[in-house]
């Protein structure tokens, strides 16, 4: 299983250095945390990895080969998938259909087979449907399979996005605040799923503001502030780092 390396990556918007010369690794079989204050540049990092934004400097490598300049669909096909911080679903499609497009990377039947409805295409489609149902089951969404995704409650929409992102069994999954809008009990359910995914060999990059959640799950945590990497390492140590406390966690209740 490949790992993802960011080396000296920067992103500038005009004069604003949203991400400034950061280096990090997302290894397989582990959950890696990325935390930092609002506007620190976390989502920008995800956008650069997934090919939505171009890099100003630096390089991103997947299993040794650079994906820094690849278009987002190419990055996805190489096995890096993501969720969006501001949920993006196909609002008019059902929950099941939303998950089904997640399988695109695994489709082998060609355009002609699809156009002519050849058995190969139909067989493949059936197989995907079965897998999609079991994914929905896993996320507790089975009863919503035929609901239009746009009509789901916020927390359920998040789950659909995750199911879709992992449908094609990618090597690396970038999760941008996956448990935002869920209470602790609900987050714990997802924590279990994330652990299982990591155990199966996937590398997860987890962006979260729920610090407890991050410390519980991650082996390695990176902390961004104003685009700069201000700390990294063991989550328990990092979250006690005075710089991190001052910039991000605050002193009051945590």
């Amino acid at each position, binding site marked *: 299983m490949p790992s993802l390396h960011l080396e000296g990556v920067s992103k500038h918007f005009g004069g604003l250095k949203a991400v400034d010369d950061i280096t990090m690794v997302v290894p397989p079989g582990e959950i890696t945390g990325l935390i930092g204050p609002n506007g620190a540049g976390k*989502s920008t990092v*995800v*956008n650069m990895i997934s090919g*939505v934004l171009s890099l100003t400097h630096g390089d991103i490598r997947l299993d040794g080969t650079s994906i820094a300049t690849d278009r987002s669909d190419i990055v996805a096909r190489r096995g890096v998938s993501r969720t*969006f*911080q*501001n949920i*993006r679903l196909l609002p008019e499609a059902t929950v099941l259909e939303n998950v089904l497009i997640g399988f695109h990377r695994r489709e082998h039947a060609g355009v002609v087979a699809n156009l002519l409805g050849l058995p190969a295409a139909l067989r493949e489609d059936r197989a995907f449907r079965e897998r999609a149902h079991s994914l929905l089951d896993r996320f507790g969404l089975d009863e919503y399979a035929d609901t239009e995704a746009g009509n789901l409650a916020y927390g359920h929409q998040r789950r659909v996005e995750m199911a879709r992102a992992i449908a094609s069994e990618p090597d690396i999954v970038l999760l*941008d605040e996956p448990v935002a809008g869920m209470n602790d009990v609900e987050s714990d359910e997802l924590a279990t799923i994330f652990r299982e995914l990591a155990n199966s060999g996937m590398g997860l990059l987890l962006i979260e503001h729920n610090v407890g959640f991050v410390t519980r799950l991650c082996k390695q945590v990176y902390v961004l502030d104003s685009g700069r990497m201000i700390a990294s390492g063991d989550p328990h140590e990092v979250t006690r780092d005075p710089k991190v406390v001052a910039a991000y966690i605050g002193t009051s209740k945590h």
Partner: protein
Amino acid sequence: MLSQQILNGLVTGSVYALFSLGFTLIFGVQKLLNFAHGATFMAGAFIAYYCTISGLPFLLAIGFSMVATGVIAILVDLIAFRSLRKRGNAEFPALVSSIGVDLILVSIAQQVSKTQVLNFPFGTFPVKFYTFMGLRISLLQLVILATVAVLVALLIFYLKKTTFGRQVRAVATNERAAALLGVNAQSVYLQTFFIAGALAGLAGVLIGLLFNSMQFLMGEPYMLRAFVVVVIGGLGSVPGAIVASLMLGVMQSLTVAYLPSGLTDAIIFALLFVVLLIRPNGLFGDANAVAGGTRQ
């Protein structure tokens, strides 16, 4: 002759601007194409004509016609758009319902005019020509240029210097959110449609006067041009619509004057195509607005 042709183009273009401004305004606020705009324009010309021949002083007739077309535009909104808008995702259905309204208005006009071409009685507007520096310009052309300039200035003032412009943009961006913030979307729609209709009506009268010809189908070619102008200018952009209108007017004049007339359309549309390839969001288009707005 070149400068004369440019002048002709500018006059025509400024009438396009009047027509297109309303169109772009409606598009700007609700992202819908109003196919009945051409019929509203035609109605403006017709109403002014029938007022004039029944003895109303011409200026009064224009005023009356602008109010009437403003009201017609509001009716278009009520009939064709309102209920669709409420259900969301109205882009395509609204196309059909506004075509429906267009059919109705055109059909009424055809009955009223008995399919005849109408023209304002001679002397409705004094025919006077001035020549300076070898350019022939008529009083009417001067008046049109001035009227358009004044109206455009007023409109920009209204959009920029009152909260109306902000309300329009808020409704355009996210009607639901705007409503939760206290913006009365209904009143925003009412105002935009009224303004759009009145401007189209005036454009109809001016075209009728300028080219001495009004007919129930007169809106159609202008619709086509308005589409082009509004898109090339950058959807919803007022300055874009004005610049693109003037450009289109001048371009048309020049292609007629200097190029094989059979190819006028091909050349104009090829140019448009090229403009779009260079500026995929139009001349004054906001890349951000079209490319999906919010980020992840």
